[in-house]
């Protein structure tokens, strides 16, 4: 029952994020647009490119969806509203998101199209950039909670949210989350103006609908993870816990969607340079900072 409810919540969340995305992209708030667009996608035929690698081509959108849903399975909406409260939940989400890369590289190679291929490779470079920055901040929130279970991490923030005590990790994790979801300015694999929609360019009809849904669910899970790790999850006065979770998730999603509109797409070389030369040292400093504060706090 919890699973069904949470799946519905996930879908509703994806829909709301789709509305938000349309709002940030076009400046108009149109609540029915994702529904109409989704129906229209079902109405269009789903073409398979000639000489496509059929297995990769078909699997990629589904794998993207699976990876996002797996990550969502361990994210708690409320203390009792979580599909699986894994003891290593914080690590598990990272493992689930690793399949985003697999899916996008499949989507790049599968269609046998040059633009998709280049876009898929770019995402490989992007993975090398964000991989450390996704994991290292998780280590610090786990340090504070002395556990990797999501519910424990939220409970550890009852006094102060992690965003306040670990601001560096918060910023890094937020940026890395945008890179995982390939949102602008990290939308290298689906660059609309540069590579004619990149990995998504060869998908049409139902397969494109699955791809788009998968990406929305991914954004939802990443936003939810940011809320759980850094913004206190369900903690908050007054409203029921799940409302707080939802509000925080949507706020983070809006921030992730809106921030990139004003900045040009990042160059691959800059992305790798900044994450490795600046991001990782900052993440290490964050770990040191958190360790110091925790140690001093204990004393």
């Amino acid at each position, binding site marked *: 029952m919890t699973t069904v409810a949470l799946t519905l919540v996930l879908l509703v969340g994806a829909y709301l994020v789709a509305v938000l995305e349309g709002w940030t992209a076009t400046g108009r708030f149109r609540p029915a647009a994702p529904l109409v667009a989704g129906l229209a996608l079902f*109405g269009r035929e789903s073409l398979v490119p*000639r*000489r496509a690698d059929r297995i990769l081509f078909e699997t990629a959108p589904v794998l993207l969806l699976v990876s996002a849903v797996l990550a969502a399975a361990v994210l708690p909406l409320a203390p009792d509203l979580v599909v699986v409260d894994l003891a290593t939940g914080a690590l598990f989400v990272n493992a689930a998101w690793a399949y985003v890369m697999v899916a996008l590289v499949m989507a790049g190679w599968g269609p*046998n*199209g*040059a*633009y998709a291929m280049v876009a898929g490779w770019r995402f490989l470079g992007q993975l090398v950039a964000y991989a450390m920055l996704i994991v290292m901040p998780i280590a610090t929130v786990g340090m504070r909670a002395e556990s990797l279970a999501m519910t424990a991490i939220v409970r550890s923030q009852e006094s102060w949210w992690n965003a306040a005590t670990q601001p560096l990790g918060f910023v890094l994790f937020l940026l890395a989350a945008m890179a995982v979801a390939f949102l602008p300015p990290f939308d290298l694999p689906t660059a609309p103006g540069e590579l004619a929609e990149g990995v998504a360019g060869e998908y049409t009809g139902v397969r494109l609908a699955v791809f788009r849904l998968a990406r929305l669910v991914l954004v939802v899970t990443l936003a939810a993870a940011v809320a759980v790790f850094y913004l206190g999850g369900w903690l908050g006065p007054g409203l029921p816990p799940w409302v707080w979770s939802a509000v925080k998730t949507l706020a983070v999603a809006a921030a992730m969607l809106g921030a990139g509109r004003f900045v040009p*797409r990042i160059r691959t070389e800059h992305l790798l340079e900044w994450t490795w030369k600046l991001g990782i040292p900052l993440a290490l400093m964050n770990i040191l900072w958190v360790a110091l504060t925790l140690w001093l706090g204990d004393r």
Partner: protein
Amino acid sequence: MTVSGPRLGISTWPRRLLAWALARDLPAFVVPDTRLARSAGLDLEAAGLRPVATPRHATVLIVVGEVPPGLAAAAGVAYAQMPRPRTILAVGAAPILGLPPPDATTTLDQAGLMAGVARLRRQLAEGAFATEAPVLDLAAARTRTEFVCPMHPEVVRNEPGSCPVCGMDLVPREAAGAMARHDHAGIVPAMAHASGAAAGTEEDAAKRTYTCPMHPAVVQSGPGRCPICGMHLVPMGRADDPPQQALSRRSGPDSGDGTGSSGDRAREEPAGTVDDGHAGPAEQADQHAGQDALAVGVAGDQPAGQPAGRHGAAMRAARPGTMMDHRSHVDSGMDHGAHDAPASSTAHPAVGHDSSNHAPMGGAGHLVAMDPADPARMTIPRTAEDGSGHRSPDHRTPMDHTATGPQGMDQGPMDHGAMESGGVDHGTMDHSPPGGGFMSMVAMTEALPRSPDGLPMEWVEIPFGPLFAGLPGGLALSFTLDGDGVARATVGTGTTARGQRRGWPGPAETFPDRLARLDPLAPVAYRLLAQRALEAVAGVVVDEPTARRRVRAAEWERVGSHLGWLAEFASLIGATWLARRSAQLQLAVVRAKDEDDARLAAEIRGFVRAGARLPLLHRRLVGIGGTGLDLADRLRGPVARAAGIEVDARTDDPAYRGLGFGTSLDSGGDALARLRVRLAEIVASLDLLLAAGAAAAPNAPPVPSGLLGSAEAMVETPRGAARLRLTLERGAVIDAHVDPPSAGHIVLIPGLVEGREVADALVAIASLDLSPWEVDR
């Protein structure tokens, strides 16, 4: 009510719901590009259309204005790539050859567009699903199979056989088919060497220099074997070509097909890609009897599990899953196959999974060109500096394994190992595995030139145009990508050829209007150019109110043009707010009733200030797209001024001088400088408009009759100075020669992009603000 490309099926109530949704959500692929649509005053989003970057995601193919035959062919291919149901909306266009009849044809204005969209919606809601679908058979989308040697791409035959050079079996490959290709005359002359020369045939083979992949010191003028190791020699460039040109040349028939047919095919598979023994030709054979495509060994090449032949294709194409399709595809297997044939050639060029599209193996290892004067010296490609440590600033250093650092280190041992495992050793004759089928990536890339990052990747030739979303519509580019970097680039502009020049001779009174049609992006400037030339012939000097009026018109057009360029450029680099806002402002400028809209001017100024301060814009653009100093004399307009070269045709104009005109300069010569210069010019134009003041619009002075003589005139179009040389006799134009700025800039493209990552290459090209229309060749 029907649409031109309905989806097959009986219209049940769930499908009517889907049809309603299809009618409401209208992603549109714009031909030739959105900038032209906006400069015609069309607001696509307000009409309910949503421009998309690929025809695969589009329902509507919207054709704006008059489409030249080359672009019509590309539009036809784009249409074939759209998933059904698909429609065509022709806005202000004459009947388009090469496309099915449009579903709606309207006038070239917003009201017409809205009416057309409303009609399309009705048609889609009723006719999205139909029991019969017309078979799409476009000449431009037809392909045929040719046979090529994997090792020697210049060897091309129409039937299977063996390669005369090395004896390998020829592998099938798809190429542009029945439609006559644009010949090399369609390419800017400076590029001719790149395509014409390298389109080698056997006759050409004898004229080339040949070298041994293992021993670059061995050079001879015809094919043969290396006296040292006995390997077959591989061709290099022509003996009289300097190494740099040998570099920008493309290999084999790919060049001919790629350049020519990139005009034909929007984003078809380039000629140099996959062998296609599969359903493609099999399906096509059903439609095009007599094609020798069936001669291809279909069965042998099929991977296991994929049913060959038409039914296989039909089943693949008809997507299982939605129950709606099961009923339809049984009786329409043919149709699915039929439209799948051109459609399933990917919107985006295919990458060969086999060896047939790699660049010829010239030189040993990472060596790329022989210096014919001194065979012991090798050169590395001239690449743009981007801060990567691998680039050697002196591009004529002799390459040896120790001097090139990481490149050298992983080349040395790896090469020998690779060669061994690839089956190349000193005694045997060829590197190919038996049967000519599969080659390992290591073996395939062993002799390729290395890109500056040292990573050996297969070379793939990919068209980027003429309907590519980030580039000006009509610019047919072809990149040879080495991984994600551009190894070579060639340009073709035949797609915008409209034969305008033929219409220029004629009465002098109508000549300005005829010249204005040359470039739909800058009609005012070209009309002014014609008027000036006529006045120069007549020896007439216009009075001040007329001169001021002209300044206002020209500057208003400049503001609109730069805003339009900025919208496309910003959408290329992904700065969506910048793109959206400048598109809105461009539309407002185009639609403004008069040039004195103070509020609009204030908005534009505010936007320019905000845009220049966009975060990270500097980092994104700095250092990209710089041309060398030796090309400085080819630069014009904002491109030249961004490099610090102070050339502007307006400085010689007394009307401008009287209004206090000053050129906008920047140093840097890169994409960032060009952006800054254009932003500064927008503000400068607004200042000029303010200084010129609101003037009553006098009638254009009448052209004196019976003019005789010839004269030259120059005008600063938004892209640079355009020159016109006009000869008149008895009041009629008998000869007119236009030198547009884009002609000089297009030639710069290969040098600008080679060695760049593909996104940076596109930014560099877009920063030039080219107009393929004014080249019109």
